């Protein structure tokens, strides 16, 4: 798709690439994210213990960090480091899958709404406006609380289902901006079918904002999953996730602090890397460094 992208994107691309390469934030963030992805992939090799094994309920319950257990043990005598490493898999998988789905869906919907316009556009955008004004966490709380125990797959789908609003709005705005550009009009005059105009002439223009949005969304979904797991309605034990390790230590924060501290740091570092990368990408794509004041929600 990119090889046949329209002239506008073609001129901008090398500049963007150069700007990104010169940005230290990009390299640090990519390094951190690569390390986290590798941790998730090679979890069985890295984890010193079985994350679900209750090692010695009599002697190893809630032990502070030591040489044998660098991050301590939890209330079931499980090794926290091993749980954290395996938790990386769960937290990352939920975030990446959910964001992939919602970005794809949101991009398609936004592009179609923007290109076709009319009633479809109006209805969709009113719906997005309405959905925007409800905090995502609240929406998910009602649904999950009522449906009771849900699997990790359903959780991922639910998060994806409430995550496409931002990107659909961004892509729609980009689509509107190029819909009547000369090269689109020319393509239409040549009789190029609508889906092909969308795919080859319209979408490549929207890909930048969509990527920025996706990068920031990965961080947001990690936070969301952790928050839900902390409330006891996200990923359920004994499957470890960064959020539910914290939840398991939440009732004893006064003495078992290591259950809170380490998973939280893992979340913080990962989300920070995503946000730093997202910021860098945005700066590279928009050299004026102007945040559009209205469409750019500071809280997602």
């Amino acid at each position, binding site marked *: 798709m990119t090889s046949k992208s329209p002239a506008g994107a073609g001129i901008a691309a090398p500049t963007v690439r150069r700007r990104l390469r010169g940005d230290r934030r990009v390299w640090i963030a990519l390094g951190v994210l690569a390390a986290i992805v590798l941790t998730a992939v090679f979890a069985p090799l890295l984890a010193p213990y079985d994350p679900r094994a209750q090692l010695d309920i009599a002697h190893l319950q809630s032990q502070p960090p030591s040489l044998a257990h660098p991050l301590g043990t939890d209330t079931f005598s499980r090794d926290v480091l091993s749980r954290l490493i395996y938790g990386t898999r769960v937290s990352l998988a939920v975030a990446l899958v959910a964001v992939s789905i919602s970005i794809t869906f949101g991009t398609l919907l936004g592009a179609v709404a923007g290109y076709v316009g009319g009633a479809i556009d109006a209805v969709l955008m009113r719906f997005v406006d309405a959905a925007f004004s*409800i905090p995502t966490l*609240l929406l998910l709380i009602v649904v999950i609380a009522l449906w009771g125990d849900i699997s990790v797959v359903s959780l991922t789908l639910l998060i994806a289902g409430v995550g496409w609003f931002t990107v659909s709005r961004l892509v729609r705005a980009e689509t509107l901006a190029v819909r009547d550009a000369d090269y689109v009009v020319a393509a239409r005059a040549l009789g190029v079918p609508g889906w092909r105009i969308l795919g080859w002439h319209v979408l490549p223009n929207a890909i930048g904002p969509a990527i920025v949005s996706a990068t920031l969304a990965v961080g947001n979904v990690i936070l969301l999953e952790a928050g839900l797991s902390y409330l006891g309605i996200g990923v359920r034990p004994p499957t470890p996730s960064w*959020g539910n390790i914290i939840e398991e230590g939440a009732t004893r924060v006064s003495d078992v602090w290591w259950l809170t501290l380490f998973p939280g740091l893992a979340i913080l570092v990962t989300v920070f890397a995503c946000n730093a990368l997202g910021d860098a990408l945005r700066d590279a794509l928009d050299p004026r460094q102007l945040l559009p*004041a209205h469409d750019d929600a*500071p809280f997602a």
Partner: protein
Amino acid sequence: MRRYLAARLLQAIGVVAFVTTFAFVVVHLAPGDPIASALARPNITEAVREQWRVAYGLDRPVSEQYVRWVVNAARGNLGYSFSHRRPVRDVFADAMPNTLLLSGLGLVLSFAIGIMVGLLQAERPGGRRDRWLGRILLVLYSVPDFWLALVVLILFAYRLPLFPPGGMTDSVMYEYLSPGAKFLDRIKHLVLPVLTLAVLTAAGIARFQRGALLAVLPSDWMRTALAKGLSWQAAVRHHAFRNALLPTITLFGLSIPAFATGAIFVEKVFSWPGMGLIVVNGIAARDYPLVTAGVMVMSVLVAGCALVADIAVAAADPRIRLG
């Protein structure tokens, strides 16, 4: 202006209708009705359950139940909480002032911090101060709400017992304190939750404020201000700042969902008896009417604040007011 307001009001009504309908649909799609699940005691016979269904109108067509749900919600009748054994409305009436106190103080403080930090950054964009503040903000922006609250709790209530670990008042001594000491006790309980909430939301506000300021810096009137001999700092503080305040009013509306979310976690961590804690405890107790109504009330509040913010922007901005 009038057309804009009408459209905006219509949108807010749409949001409320959407939320109410959504809550109704979710409750009805959930497996099992409240009679079968929430009152799952084996010694209640099916005949009794049937009688209850008739009594609560659960045997009526869905359309009729929906209309009754909307009418009841509009009248403030939000159902009956199983876990509190009293009407949801009464539970909320007790919790709401606590949440408003916490988030009201948090709101004022976070806007004060956020706007100030944004201004400090935008004065010399790209400078050392801007970059360092930016990094700190990005950390705060990336931190999980509940985790920061827990860390604050561990540090300042347990490791260094400077403040009480939770609640609104001292559970034992409060009743026996003098009025002055009572006030002091309340303040002490407020410090950690309010500061945590304020710091969490200030990060987003500062990032936005910096962007808003940078957006107005290349304006013609900024060049005029500099040309007439104002220092850069004075021009930023007196001219750019005032113009950048307009988007900040919009930001007020945009930040309300973050406050609702933040308040849920902060209230849970600090056992602050507000709407967030009530709803979260309702999840564990499987108290569906309470959770659904709580989310509905909070969503309507959020939509209301966004509406107020948009009206305020329209009133303050002549381009919209006269347009």
